[in-house]
């Protein structure tokens, strides 16, 4: 009964989304007040029902109810509980249900609390939200029903790929999904504002927390995914320009641009059309990402062409949502005036460079990701990889980083070079000296060389806005900006150092042998078998010395899972403040020696520390904005209360 209950709740939620759609859009018409009052309650109840449906799915997975196809295909009674639960969303149907649930919860939340915008704009927003949600409900109910029963329940489930039985991975996709959903809320606000011609700073302020939240989650999701690939795949790479990675990077790039342009709109009432466009693009990139990951097109274009049901469905939703939004934009563009003007030497000018560069990088990633799929459809197979993305992306990234170092020093609207001459000259000198020194001393490649120099400049530039300000009275949102920008520098430094200075050793050794790599030496003490709950493994014991002093043991394993049978490499990571020693155990050669792979990766961890800093900056900015909103709301309520009291008093004295 649990599965049927979940399915019914899902159908009811879809019906309520239909009601919300009608109430939102019909309520906009004259005389529609009667139906308009239904929009907010519909959104709330829809959120509850959808949440209930998802809880039912969790319950089915917790009980390992094998009569449900999804559970039988993806779970196993011997799995630890946490992975049983995460299995609920570690598959196509479950993850789409999670998506819709989070979307419904977000819709319920804005219906419940958001009162700042004109009611008509809110109605249009809720209507747009319902329109997007209905598409996904249809997708779930008609093409990916998570509650489908099997005629005969199997005796045991198919298990879950052991590569995916990892705590990081259990929470990585939901993080990205929550981010995508945040962008869908931003999209609904954009459509609502366009329909009711209310592209105002107030609209930007209402939309900003959603963009910020989505952006924080996407940032953390990408950083976590990168770290997962780094330690799980066993070869020390942290970014592969794989289409799946690009699918998560593209919404992030769009959200980063949107985040900056929405701040301009909120603070200065400028870049109106640009913000609206980015809002549409950010959500379309979420859908493009979902399409790439969920349609199966990446495995093979031809396999996708043979069984295109799901992919076509997502593609149709994408066309409908984005085409619709662009059509509305086209008819309303003339009424969305450009907004306030500004000179290029101003805070807005710097942010325009940020927007243009991020959009161009987004275009390149999109091109490089989709182009091979396009040619494959014509039976021409090409590969686009790091040798393409790195230099072509850098053409736009590096100027943008320069703008990042200088932009926050500028004033809004118009500034003079004379005012910022000293810090700019100091930054320029630092950059030039760094480039020359690195070039003379190390002789590393041009991209990591420029990367290191720019990391230094961005690090200095990011803290310069603190100069001459009282740190204790600085608003949280400014702290957020400073910390996030510093995070960019830290990440860039980690990437450039690892690329430029990593040391690699691939060797076959006997027990007792010593391997040197960079400042480390590792002695293989023993190789022994070990067993876990659903795997067996061969484990190496390595004793490590850093510059001659004994520091640690490392125990890399070569693991074999038995359900389904899969071999994985469990690497050992030995972390110091200045980098990581990465050790992996390979097979035994015929002569009895063991294959070892060791990398000394200087400052590689800074890539993810930087990602955390960027996320922290986003959280601080979000806290600053939301607490400001709450304070304003409390103040408004006090004023309203006092007015009511006064009116009452006046009425009493009058009578």
């Amino acid at each position, binding site marked *: 009964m649990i599965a049927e209950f979940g399915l019914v709740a899902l159908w009811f939620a879809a019906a309520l989304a239909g009601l919300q759609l009608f109430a939102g859009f019909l309520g906009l018409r004259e005389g529609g007040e009667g139906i308009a009052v239904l929009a907010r309650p519909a959104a709330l109840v829809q959120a509850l029902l959808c949440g209930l449906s998802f809880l039912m799915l969790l319950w089915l997975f917790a009980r390992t109810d094998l009569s449900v196809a999804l559970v039988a295909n993806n779970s196993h009674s011997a799995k630890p509980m946490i992975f049983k639960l995460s299995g609920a969303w570690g598959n196509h149907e479950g993850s789409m249900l999670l998506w819709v649930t989070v979307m419904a919860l977000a819709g319920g939340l804005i219906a419940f609390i958001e009162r700042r915008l004109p009611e008509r704009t809110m109605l249009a927003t809720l209507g747009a939200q319902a329109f997007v949600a209905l598409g996904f409900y249809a997708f779930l109910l008609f093409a990916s029903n998570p509650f489908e029963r099997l005629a005969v329940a199997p005796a045991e489930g198919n298990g879950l790929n052991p590569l995916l039985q990892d705590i990081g991975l259990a929470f990585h996709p939901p993080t990205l999904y929550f981010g995508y959903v945040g962008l869908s809320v931003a999209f609904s606000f954009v459509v609502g504002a366009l329909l009711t011609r209310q592209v105002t700073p107030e609209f930007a302020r209402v939309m900003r927390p959603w963009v910020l939240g989505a952006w924080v989650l996407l940032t953390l999701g990408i950083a976590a995914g990168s770290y997962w690939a780094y330690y799980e795949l066993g070869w020390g790479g942290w970014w592969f320009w794989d289409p799946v990675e690009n699918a998560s990077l593209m919404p992030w790039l769009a959200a980063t641009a949107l985040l900056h342009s929405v701040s301009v709109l909120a603070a200065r009432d400028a870049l109106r059309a640009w913000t609206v466009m980015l809002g549409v693009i950010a959500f379309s990139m979420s859908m493009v990402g979902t399409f790439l990951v969920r349609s199966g097109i990446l495995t093979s274009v031809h396999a996708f062409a043979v069984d295109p049901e799901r992919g076509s469905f997502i593609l149709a939703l994408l066309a409908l949502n984005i085409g619709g939004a662009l059509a509305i934009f086209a008819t309303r563009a003339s009424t969305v005036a450009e907004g306030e003007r500004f000179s290029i030497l101003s805070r807005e000018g710097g942010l325009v460079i940020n927007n243009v*560069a991020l959009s161009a990088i987004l275009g390149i990633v999109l*091109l490089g990701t989709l182009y091979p799929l396009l040619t494959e459809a014509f039976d021409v*197979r090409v590969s686009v990889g790091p040798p393409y993305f790195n230099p072509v992306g850098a053409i736009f990234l590096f100027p943008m980083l320069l703008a990042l170092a200088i932009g926050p020093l500028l004033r809004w609207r118009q500034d003079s070079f004379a005012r910022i001459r000293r810090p700019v000259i100091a930054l320029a000198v630092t950059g030039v000296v760094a480039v020359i020194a690195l070039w003379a001393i190390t002789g590393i490649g041009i991209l990591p060389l420029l990367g290191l120099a720019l990391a230094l400049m961005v690090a200095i530039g990011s803290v310069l806005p603190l100069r001459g300000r009282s740190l204790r009275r600085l608003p949280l949102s400014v702290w957020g900006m400073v910390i996030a920008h510093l995070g960019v520098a830290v990440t860039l430094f980690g990437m450039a150092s690892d690329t430029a200075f990593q040391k690699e050793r691939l060797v076959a050794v006997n027990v007792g042998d010593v391997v040197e790599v960079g400042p480390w030496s590792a002695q293989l003490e023993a190789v022994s078998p070990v067993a876990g709950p659903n795997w067996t493994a061969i484990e190496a014991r390595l004793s490590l010395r850093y510059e001659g002093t004994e520091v640690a043991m490392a125990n890399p394993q070569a693991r074999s899972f038995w359900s389904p049978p899969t071999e994985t490499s469990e690497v050992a990571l030995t972390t110091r403040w200045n980098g990581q020693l990465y050790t992996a155990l390979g097979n035994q050669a015929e002569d009895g020696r063991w294959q070892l792979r060791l990398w000394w990766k200087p400052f590689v961890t800074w890539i993810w520390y930087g990602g955390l800093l960027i996320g922290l900056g986003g959280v601080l900015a979000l806290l600053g904005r939301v607490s400001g909103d709450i304070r304003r709301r409390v103040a408004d309520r006090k004023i309203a209360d006092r007015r009511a009291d006064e009116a009452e008093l006046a009425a009493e004295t009058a009578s």
Partner: protein
Amino acid sequence: MRALPALIALALAIPAPLAAQDSLPPAPYAYNQLEDPELEEQARELMLTLRCLKCQSQSIADSDAPMAGDMRHQVRTRLAAGETPDEIRTWLVERYGDYVSYEPRVTASTWPLFVIPVVLLLIAGLIIRGRLTRKVQPQEGAE
């Protein structure tokens, strides 16, 4: 002529001799480095830009697949024998097609990959220039 794409697909699908050795122990230079650090550095740079044909989106430098191991062995032995990285890349492309190289060449079917970034650069320049020439006029009373 309809058979041509099918023939190409078939030719690609026939396991090349390198891939046929899955059951044999890995070739000596699959998991071992060259003695000469400079050559090894070149080998690594080249391997990072060659696609493992049996994996999903991994270079041969990042893969445990037997075929990736064999290709690493080929790259290292050929470099040690005095071939340049470009010659090895050309050889592999002739053997496996453009798909094996992550570094797309400019050809009749890939030119948009190189033209579009230039167009993007021009557009970006135009947008920023448009902003640059449009000055603020503080005298206007309509502020």
